[in-house]
């Protein structure tokens, strides 16, 4: 159990829906893998058509929708998209995602900060997607966001925790939850993020593009649990040299 955004959650695995081959998988992930938070890109919440259904129709009533502003190019657009998202979904959770470019999909820190300031004042539960930048994370914490969501490595790359040395200080220094978002490609990467002390992870590509997204969500869910348990217990330190007593020990210690 953990508290975030005014909710108590059992699962620390958040899932993105944008790349899924079929929205009906959302419900299965909720029931079979225990996923409770689903990120939904507002830009893709189209109306029901003859051939496609709105993603919102597939999200179980008790699940939490995290509105995603992806596609926003600046803070003004992000705020507008968040407002539209809140109207459409009735959810107050917003993942602020403002990309600097469409080539790498790196977040725009300055615009993200501006958008968060406005959205917090507008009463949203704000979850900014950011670079692993401690200074930025601190500023966002002061503004009053619910959590920070630093990237593990660039979106969609499946490269795992590529920025460990930058993520660690954020986890150590920030009091609000830290959700590692983007780049996590394997359950073992997610476990590692949790072992490091992250509060949750958000996975999209690795689950959506696997051959069995529900089973993969389950694998991630178990990995997240395992990693969290290990963090709570406290991982043993790695030692550079063996600790076995040396024949010199008697002489040195007398």
């Amino acid at each position, binding site marked *: 159990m953990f508290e975030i955004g005014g909710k108590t959650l059992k699962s620390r695995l958040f899932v993105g829906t944008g790349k899924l081959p079929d929205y009906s998988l959302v419900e299965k992930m909720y029931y079979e893998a225990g996923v409770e938070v689903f990120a939904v890109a507002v830009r893709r919440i189209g109306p029901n058509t003859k051939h*496609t259904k709105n993603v919102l129709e597939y999200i179980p009533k008790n699940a939490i929708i995290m509105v995603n502003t992806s596609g926003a190019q600046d803070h003004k*657009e992000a705020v507008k998209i968040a407002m539209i998202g809140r109207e459409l979904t009735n959810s107050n959770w917003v993942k602020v995602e403002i990309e600097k470019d*469409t080539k*790498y999909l790196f977040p725009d820190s300055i615009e993200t900060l501006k958008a968060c300031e406005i959205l917090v004042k507008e009463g949203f539960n704000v979850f900014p997607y950011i670079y692993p930048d401690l200074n930025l994370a601190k500023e966002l914490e002061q503004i009053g966001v619910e959590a920070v969501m630093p990237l593990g490595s660039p979106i969609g790359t499946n490269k795992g925790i590529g920025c460990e040395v930058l993520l660690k200080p954020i986890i150590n220094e920030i009091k609000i939850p830290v959700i590692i978002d983007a780049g996590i490609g394997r359950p073992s990467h997610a476990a590692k993020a949790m072992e490091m002390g992250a509060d949750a992870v958000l996975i999209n*590509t690795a689950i959506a593009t696997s051959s069995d997204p529900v089973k993969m969500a389950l694998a991630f869910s178990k990995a997240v649990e395992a990693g969290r348990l290990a963090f709570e217990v406290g991982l043993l330190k790695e030692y550079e040299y063996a600790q076995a007593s040396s024949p010199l020990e008697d002489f040195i210690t007398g």
Partner: protein
Amino acid sequence: MTEFIREAQKVWEEFKDYVPTYDEVCEILEKEVVSIEDVAKLLNVEDKNLILLMASKAKKITRENFGKVILLYAPLYISNYCQNGCVYCGFSCRKNYKREKLDLDEIENELRSMKEEGIDSVIILTGEDRIHSPVDYIKQACKIATEYMSEVSIEVYPLFEEEYKSLVNAGVVGITIYQETYQKEDYEKLHPFGPKKDFDFRLSAVERALSVGFHEACVGPLLGLSHPKKDVLCTLLHAEYLLDRFPKAEISVSFPRFRSAGVDFVPRYTISDKDFIKFLLIARLYLPRVGIVISTREDARLRDALIDVCITKMSAGSKTTVGGYATQGEKDAQFEVEDRRTVAEVVESIIKKGLRPEFTNWVRGVNSL
């Protein structure tokens, strides 16, 4: 602006006869970033097995970047009046057939019919004629379209900046504009008269659109009109140029192959399925996050095979005649449609491949709120 064409020319001259070995191709495929020199080499690969290897890498890149989603759209031709004498086109003013232009009620009828088919993303097209299809007419058509469709794009003659801005304000999000060929000498021969003769004004159109707020742009050649490999190289560098200059825009490329359009024109080059596939794969390898669009010019079997590998966006249920959805059939079309399946059939085929059909890429009007 034309710098990238010179670069393509230079790279092509250097590698036009260079056929990479099996190992060299494998080395290129192992790279995280493929260079334009690598592209020039890959264009000369003929070995079927190597092309299949390229396909498996292309598929991986596509899934990582775009997931299991195929965007669908359909074109709506609202006018076939044209002032150009393009020697290859079914809309050319040399061609003697009934010119038509839909009035606003007819446009609405068409959109209603498209919507009934399940289409939710439309590209509004006109011939190139500022008198019969003035910008204000296009704008009104787009405004009506935004009432029916989640996403509205245009494929019309090149406009000026302020004109593009007025379309952004009307809710238009995307622009498609084919350069036809990037080889200026050939371009001038193929477009003997009419406003389209201005190569540079056409080439710079996408920049003007993106600079005033368009979200998406699709560029490409009409393969067959000029040297196809040179045109592919130019297209990729054009897309890259746009990405560098407008990093927030979503850029797509498309490589339509010439199709007969009832005019007496035989293209200089015929592009085989194998070459066409290779071009698309190379586009994906060079530009991992660029959209790749395939139209109904291609047949159903090939389209179905490609959506599983590198395609991100395709048209469905297209009618290329003015008034084609609500009233007329396919007489006097701009080009012949090869994939004549209904939208429902295309959707079914996408789902069968384990992919999700999607009609909404941008919530209508996000950029004009």
